[in-house]
């Protein structure tokens, strides 16, 4: 197992139990999606995986080695995060944003190679290198956020709601890019409200509900799961439910 999470419990203050005994794993080369509604704890999970939130109990392991929950140690261990709403540095140039992604790396040559990979994935970024990140369009900003995370040459790339606020055509483009990144060997852990797209590209997936993992399976299996279809894909069997209700009344 490349990344494994064991019995993670995360609290906000004393009262709010945001993640409850969350355990899961991501194999090398996999795309794993975690779907869930707003407030299910998806972003909390991401922030915990990069060490910004300290779990009350539980462990995060890379190839069996526990990672201390400190951000720069998580990056050093091979985790990179594309956060929700991107969190770029708008007053820095595209190039500077990318440079910061490679902050811990000393191999100048490797960094240049990875920059080329990012440009090949998102050619528009190469044209905009000396432009301020804040002047990019929403889609371009999402590409830059992904590119910035790739610059650390992560073993596993965490993506938090990459489709948020993007037009449908851009959403497709972003998901296509995620698949390209996966096929070039980077493991992907994707957290999404857009369950349809997330399940379609996932090898395996988990469903997170109020801080708990309630379902897991192959991406395709979950697409056909009636509970998932009703709760996350908006294709509830309205007719059946309606019929049941009428039956009860009669």
């Amino acid at each position, binding site marked *: 197992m490349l990344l494994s999470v064991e019995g993670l419990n995360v609290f906000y203050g004393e009262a709010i139990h945001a993640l409850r005994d969350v355990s899961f794993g991501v194999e090398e080369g996999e795309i794993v999606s975690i779907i869930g509604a707003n407030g299910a704890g998806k972003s909390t999970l991401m922030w915990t995986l*990069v060490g*910004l939130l300290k779990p009350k109990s539980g462990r995060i392991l890379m190839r069996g080695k526990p990672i201390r929950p400190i*951000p*720069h140690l998580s*990056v*050093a261990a091979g985790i990179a*995060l594309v*956060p929700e*709403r991107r*969190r770029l*540095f*708008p*007053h*820095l140039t595209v190039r*500077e944003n990318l*440079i*910061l*992604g490679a*902050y*811990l790396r000393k191999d100048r040559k490797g960094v240049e190679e990875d920059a080329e990979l990012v440009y090949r994935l998102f050619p528009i970024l190469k044209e905009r290198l000396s432009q301020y990140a804040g002047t990019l369009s929403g889609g371009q900003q999402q590409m830059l956020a992904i590119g*910035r995370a790739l610059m*650390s040459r992560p073993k596993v790339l965490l993506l938090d709601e990459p489709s948020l606020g993007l037009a449908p055509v851009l959403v497709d483009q972003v998901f296509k890019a995620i698949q390209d990144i996966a096929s070039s060997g980077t493991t992907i852990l994707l957290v999404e409200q857009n369950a349809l797209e997330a399940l379609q590209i996932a090898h395996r997936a988990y469903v997170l509900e109020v801080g708990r993992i309630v379902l897991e399976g192959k991406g395709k299996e979950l697409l056909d799961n009636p509970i998932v279809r009703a709760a996350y894909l908006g294709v509830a069997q309205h007719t059946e439910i309606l019929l049941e209700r009428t039956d009860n009344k009669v």
Partner: protein
Amino acid sequence: MFIQTIITGLSIGSVYALMAVGYSLVFSVLNFSNFAHGAIITLGAYIAWALMVHYLQVPFLLALLLSMGGAGALAFLNERIAYSTLRRRRAPSLYLMISAMGVAISLQNILYATIGAKLYALPPVFAMDVVHMGELTISKMDIFAFVFSAFTIAILHLILVRTKVGVAIRAAAHDMEMVSVLGVNLDVLVGVLFFIAGSLGGMAGVFMGVKYMVYPSMGWITNKAYIGAVIGGLGSLPGAIVGGLLLGLLEALVSVSSIGDTSLSTYRDVFSFGILVILLIFKPTGFFGRHVEDKL
């Protein structure tokens, strides 16, 4: 006469700018006014005094560099001891500012208690030397302070634009949390930040010591530099430079002005603090200040 006043103003203004940059650097990243900066500047001047007068006769340039390093190290320690815990607990910036005031007053009183309230002069170096240019008489020290301050600020600019640490400092000014998620060790980054601010302060302290005197409360002159930083827009480096120079120039001009027979020189400080109050009414974020935006 007028040109001479301008040159004097630019010289003192450049020293204000050096100090103001220290305030702004720290403010841009940590969002609080580090009022201990004045005490660090004072200690920088005392280091130079100890090296050049009291214990040894170290040459001026070497003493200047050692004072910069020493003041930088003290600023680093100041952060580690007084602020780092508050910072990690995400305390409101008001508490950091109050802690900074505590540090400033403690350090000043440590100086009173150990070295005493006496005023010490640094060797005049070339304070007495003057250059004659036509009708102008300019102190070499004024020229040196201006050139050296400008040079140092230029180097700082290069660090912030060209080096990875510098880019990370600028990024941290916008979103510290995200910078840490990219692998930057914030303790190290903030340490570097305070070392830089402290060494610029140390340099300013030496210049002030040569121009005036070295005494425990000399750090309060940084109130002026702080005004400069606010006029320019706290957190903005160009703002700190422009604000510092502007304040120096205006002070020099006010000092030589008079209304009728009354010289305005005694009103100099009334004037500098007065424009702060008035400017804040019309332009609360200063000339180059960032408008505070929600970070989404």
